[in-house]
């Protein structure tokens, strides 16, 4: 394990990107910070800038307008960076599959920028907060 990966696994700071989600995954992500789940216990913290982030939590289908912004956000994060596709839409565009303004899913857009990106998938509509925590823990433990 390289020291970069080792340092990434401690106290993950995440930046949350909505690329056309219906808000459900987003409120569940915010829910993680509130007293019942309280992921700050584990050092997981939402930050306000992608440049401070170790991981991107991407929700939503990636609309045509959001795609260039998602690419730019990924470029701005410091590498290595883990991308979490949160929810069915981010994993494979879900119920919006085939809509004319949807260019996703998330992994397709991220791989256009960086073919070797580390992408983890947490399915569900929306994934329960427990599932999100479990996804993050599993992804970090196999790095």
């Amino acid at each position, binding site marked *: 394990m390289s020291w970069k990966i080792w340092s990434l696994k401690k106290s993950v700071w995440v930046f949350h990107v909505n690329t056309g989600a219906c808000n459900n995954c987003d409120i569940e992500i915010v829910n993680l910070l509130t007293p019942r789940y309280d992921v700050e216990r584990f050092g997981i913290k939402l930050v306000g800038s992608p440049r401070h982030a170790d991981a991107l939590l991407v929700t939503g289908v990636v609309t045509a307008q959001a795609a260039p912004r998602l690419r730019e956000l990924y470029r701005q994060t410091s590498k290595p960076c883990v991308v979490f596709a949160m929810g069915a839409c981010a994993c494979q565009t879900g119920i919006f599959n085939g809509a004319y303004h949807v260019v996703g899913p998330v992994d397709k857009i991220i791989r256009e920028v960086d073919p070797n990106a580390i992408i983890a998938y947490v399915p569900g*509509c929306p994934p329960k907060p427990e599932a999100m925590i479990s996804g993050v823990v599993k992804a970090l433990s196999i790095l």
Partner: protein
Amino acid sequence: MKESVNKPILAVGPFHPLQEEMEYFQLTVDGEIVTDIDVRISYNHRGIERLSETLQYDQIPFLVSRICGICSASHPLAYINAVEEIAGITPPDRALYVRTIINELERIHSHLLWVGLGGHFIGYDTVFMWAWKYREPVLDLLEAITGNRNNYGNVKVGGCREDIPNELIPKILKELDLVEKKTDMLTKAILDDPVLHVRLKGVGTLSKEDAISYAVTGPTARGSGIAIDVRHDDPYAAYADLDWKVITQTEGDVFAKAVVRLLEIFESIKMVRQALKKLPDGPIAVEVKEIPPGEGFGRAEAPRGETFHYIRSDGGNRPVRHKVRAPSYVNVPSFKASCIGQHIADVTLTLAAVDPCYSCTERLAVVDGRKNVVHDYDALLRLSREKTARIKKEIGVPEIKLEDF
């Protein structure tokens, strides 16, 4: 050099901190004062209306519940009202009551969510943590009834998919008592708090005349003294049978909107109790053969305002036209009236007051004028929080201790 070039323009978005869709606000600022605001939307456009025309009537509720995850009971209900109007279907009474209960539970959790975020944006994270903590039991109830914390998918043409089992009713009542007690404590704490009074009163005022001319709906309108509520004016589901009142405030500022939302939580709890008491026995769905040609509309009061769905059918198993008018779409332009003349530090809060969905982690891009004025979202949040701290100091508020509550 033109004067307008010198004025810094502050861009809010498109990954917008406070709105549910990605939206882009361009604020023209003169020093600390906002002089103009421009709105651009469609970042979150997913083509739902077009997609809906490719789906069958029974599949569409799942799609429209994903228009907005927080209004995920109101949108399907408005759609169902439209389809049932075309087909002339009267669902069984129990289905109407189940729909009402789920919609009101949704309103409770949505309003608590807003109260928490409102506190978060002025740097009062205690309110945020409390409100979101007391919201959890409501989500648990929704999960117990429908199987999902959000996106309930519980309505279908002609009735409901999942019933509320009678064994669950005592548990719901017990949890509601708890939620009511905690919300009561939170409401009193908020309404008595001198900091919140100074910080929220007179901020982002939307006068009654402006509210009418911008045609705003929901708590935004009720906070400006206009008593419109679809549940009262054009009752659907079982609202006509319930005893409740429309909450209004006359001031039109952020504080008034907060009061409206907090008091509506109690009305909703009251309604759920009554509906559970009156819950009739019987089936929860009728069989639907086909949807005849015709057109119909349905309305529902979402937590943010009136949701309107229009359906045109040609007798097939898919609608030929589906039009959705969501409450935020009419509430957002009212920023033109409520934001101009405000301090930058108050803008985040004013934007939040109209439509309280948290969509994306905050980010403000920078569009500078010639002066390289850089305000990102963190800076705005900091300004907002510093103002709260300054006011606290000025009026000499003692630190609130947790054990007081």
